[in-house]
Structures are given as C-alpha cells and as structure tokens.
C-alpha cells in the first residue's frame, strides 16, 4: 500500500507531503493540485520503467529557483518500509535534466543508489557488491533487479500502482486489438488490447466483470472480438434490441458514457479487486447520475475485500456526499501558491451536504 508521497519543486508542490489512506477522496477547487499529484506519480512510473521522461523544465515550480526536483514514494510491503527517492537536477547549460540522486532503501537499509553517474548495487544483506557508470538522464533502478530481490519487489509493486484519467472519446479509446497489452494505459486508450490480454489470463475476473456490466449497461449481453476482413480484431458488444433481436455494436459505436462505464468496471474488476493501488481522476465524467453510486459501492467493496487502495479525485455531489465526511482530503493553495491539504471539515454544523457546502464555498479552508 502507498503510505507516503513527497513532492518538492514540481508544478505547485513545494515541500509537499501526502499520506494516503486506504480509501480517500481528494477534493478542492480547480487548480488546487489534485490532478498534478496524479501526474507526479504517473511521471515517476514512466521514468522508472523507461517508457518516457516527462520531467522537464516546464514541470518545475515557477517561483522556486532551487535547481533540484524531488519525488519520494513510500510503500509498506510485507511489513517493510520501501522508500524510493528521485532527485532531478535542472541546469541552464544542459538540455535534458539529469538524475542527481536515485535511491531505494528498505527499512532504512540501502538496496540501490544512483548518484554522480554511478550506480551502486547492494546485496540483500545491505553490503555494496559492485558499481557501474550509467547515463545520468535515465533511471537505473531496473538494472539492480538482479543484484537485490527487494528492488524487484519494489518494481513489481510499482506495476500495481495505477493512475487513471479515463478518456472515453471514440478516437482515443481503441477498439482494435492487434496485440495484447498486459497493462492498461492511464487513459484506457488501449482498452481493447488490454481486454484481449485479460480474457486469457483472468477468465474468472472476466465472468464477474461481464455480470456486473449487464447490471450497469441496459440490454447488454456480452463482449467479443470480431475478425475483420483486413485481419484486424475489433472489440464488439452484443445488445438485446427490440423484439428480442440481438444487435452488435463496435466499441466506437458506444456512447461516451457507455465506454466510460465499461472502463470503470474494467478498472474495478481487473485492478481494484486485485488489491492494487488506484488513483482515479473524475470517475463521474460522462456517467449518468444513476450509475455513479452503484460503481462507487462496488469499488468500495472491492477495496475492502482485496485490501487494496482507492483514491478518488472528484467534484461530483454523489461522490462528495458519500465519502467527503469520512474520507475527504481538501486540497487548497496557500497565499504563496503552495498546495496544502487538510481533512475535509465544515465551519459549523450547518446541516448542508458537502456538495452544497462546497458549492457555496463554505468548507473550512
């Protein structure tokens, strides 16, 4: 479980610490830093996996002249505290920022360190076994998997930390599945290739997912992949139409809301229910009022059963009124622009629901 996140000199975060709970609702005005928090984790994951490096000059805090940017992740795994720290140095002379320090400790003992262009490898006992020169513009953490099993454990865990901003537009959410994708993209653009993979590896999860989708999508029957004339596989859904006729729609023929719901229930059954950590930005987008609480309750139950972690970012009254009182964390900016947080609370017992309180700006900032 993600226990702590520390961010310094990244967008609006300066010396910012966040200790997430198992269930949490991040709320606050636009621009208060909620989605940037998700981006910080996402960028860190991409940096470590080597997919891409989004830590650029533009991500630095505008008013902070300090050259170093820091992101720390702390996780509690099998009773051990894993602390990963990344320091990125920006200098006007170099085009690409460089890694000033990359370090992983487990309960205080170093298992990996990358500083000054040199990677230090440590055995499981904590003694340094070897070193290597490495490019200062890339993460070196993956190199240490062989020398220390705890590094592998951390990387495996990082694969189970998911940040989602689901984008259900038809030109984003891919219906073609030429390949299988083992992991979902942050916006579920690879929904079909990911589902193709899941069909093979998790048939039981798929049965639960389809059963839930039948409740959520009116007249929905099943999902399948069709083989097109050009050999391409496309994700299609069967629905019951008038006169008990069966009609088939491709994913691109779904409404945005239907694609969103499908994505949400996939995240629920194939990610949240597996005990993973999920940070989900605005799951209420595109979804009708009647469809929000059933998903939220099912997701809450899945977190409960799997001992996972669910952090929602939302402005929606349905979600605010159900979770704000007990799990709400309010993001706000101080006068100097820095992001701060505090548990959601009201000025006084007004009797108003949180959504109404927030709409009036009466939350206790």
């Amino acid at each position, binding site marked *: 479980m993600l226990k702590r996140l520390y961010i310094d000199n990244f967008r609006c975060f300066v010396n910012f610490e966040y200790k997430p709970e198992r269930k949490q609702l991040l709320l606050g005005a636009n621009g208060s830093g909620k989605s940037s928090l998700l981006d910080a984790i996402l960028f860190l994951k991409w940096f470590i996996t080597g997919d891409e490096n989004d830590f650029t000059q533009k991500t630095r805090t505008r008013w902070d002249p300090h050259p170093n940017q820091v992101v720390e992740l702390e996780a509690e795994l099998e009773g051990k505290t894993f602390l990963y720290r990344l320091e990125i140095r920006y200098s006007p002379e170099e085009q690409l920022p460089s890694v000033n320090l990359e370090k992983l400790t487990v309960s205080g003992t170093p298992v990996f360190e990358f500083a000054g262009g040199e990677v230090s490898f440590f055995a499981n006992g904590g003694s340094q076994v070897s070193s290597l020169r490495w490019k200062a513009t890339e993460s070196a953490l993956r190199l240490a998997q062989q020398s220390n099993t705890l590094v592998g454990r951390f990387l495996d865990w990082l694969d189970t930390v998911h940040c989602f901003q689901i984008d259900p537009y038809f030109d984003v959410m891919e219906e073609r599945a030429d390949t299988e994708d083992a992991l979902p993209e942050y916006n579920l653009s690879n929904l079909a290739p990911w589902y193709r993979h899941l069909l093979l590896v998790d048939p039981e999860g798929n049965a639960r997912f389809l059963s839930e989708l039948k409740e959520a999508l009116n007249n929905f029957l099943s999902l399948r992949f069709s083989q097109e004339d050009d050999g391409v596989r496309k994700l299609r859904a069967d629905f019951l139409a008038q006169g008990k006729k069966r009609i088939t729609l491709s994913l691109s023929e779904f409404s945005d809301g239907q694609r969103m719901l499908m994505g949400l229930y996939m995240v629920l059954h194939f990610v949240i229910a597996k005990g993973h950590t999920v940070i989900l930005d605005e799951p209420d987008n595109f979804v009708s009022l009647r*469809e929000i609480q059933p998903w939220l309750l099912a997701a809450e139950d899945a977190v*409960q059963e799997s001992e996972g972690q669910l952090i929602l970012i939302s402005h929606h009254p349905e979600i605010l009124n*159900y979770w704000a009182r*007990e799990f709400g964390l309010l993001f706000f900016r101080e006068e100097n622009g820095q992001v701060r947080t505090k548990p959601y609370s009201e000025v006084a017992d007004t*009797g108003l629901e949180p959504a109404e309180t927030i709409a009036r700006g009466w939350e206790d900032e």
Partner: protein
Amino acid sequence: MSKPTAVVLLCEDNLTSVFLRSYLKECRIFHGVRVNSTPSGSGFDWVLQQYPIEVNAYRQSKARISTWLIVTIDADKKTVTSRINQLDSRLKQSENARLREFCVQNENIARLVPRRNIETWLLVLTGAAANEKDDYKDKKAREEWQRLAKPASQQLFAWTRPNIQLPAHCIESLRLAVKELSHLSEPTH
C-alpha cells in the same frame, strides 16, 4: 440505464454501510442497493430527518416495485425502544397523511438500533465479549473495524436464517435487529 433500486439503506456512517451491504450480499442481493448515509453533521439527526422522507418514498414506490428500506440509527446512551419511539414520532407528527398511517411493522421496512453503536454489534457478531453500555468505537482503528464488517455480516446472515436459536452472548439490540430483518420478504428489481 441500470435497474431500479431494490434496497435503500439509511444509515449514520460508512462502516454501517459497508456492514449492511456485506449482509445483503450474503442474502444474494448484489445490485440495486442505494445508500443514503450521513453526508455531514450529526448522523443521528440526519437519520431522524431523512426517515419520514424515505418512508414516504418507499410507500410511493412500493406500488411499482418491491423494495426494502433498512434504517439504522445508533442507540448511543439511550434504549432501543426510545430510538424506535423517536422514529415513530417523526411519522406521527408528519403533515403527510400517508406517513401517519402506522403500518411500518407490516412493510418491508427494518429499523435497526445498534446499542451503543455499530461497533458493539461487530464485536458481538465476531464472537468478542461486549455489552451495550460501553462504547468501543475508539478501541480499534477505522481499518480494523472495516475488516470486521464482512465476518460480522456473515454471522448476522446465519442468525437471520429460519429456526435459529440465538446464542446466549447475543445482546438485546441485536436480537431485535435479527427479528426486524427476518420479517423482510424478498425484494425485486
């Protein structure tokens, strides 16, 4: 569009919601559950205020679909009877004639009054010694209470099966709740 709501839970907090929804799953009710839990302020006041609204909505909708309304309100330092009387008086005082017709016992409405609160029930249902006078809320962290919700709900389901002899350690407020839940007939949606 998803199917209509079959069960409405009116409750004071998230822990009660998690516990009762887990109980409903034991009853094989997996969908169509709507939770109206206290969004802010006093949970007790919220439930009392919402109760006539929910009973009215229940009576309006029951002509169309068979639903359950499960209301949970903590006894705190009061008795179960005094809390039930407070709920009843909300209906009796209503200007709405439909609410003043007094037939809650014959409807699919269950009024559960944990004494002192839901945490007491979770302890009793999971086999721990607990009485109705002490407040156990602060004895465990929130996550620990939430972990007890599932095993407790399984025990509650076992106790609401027909012809079950409740064990001696079952407290009075829970005995009354078992009775309330046992009279509900199956909802449809």
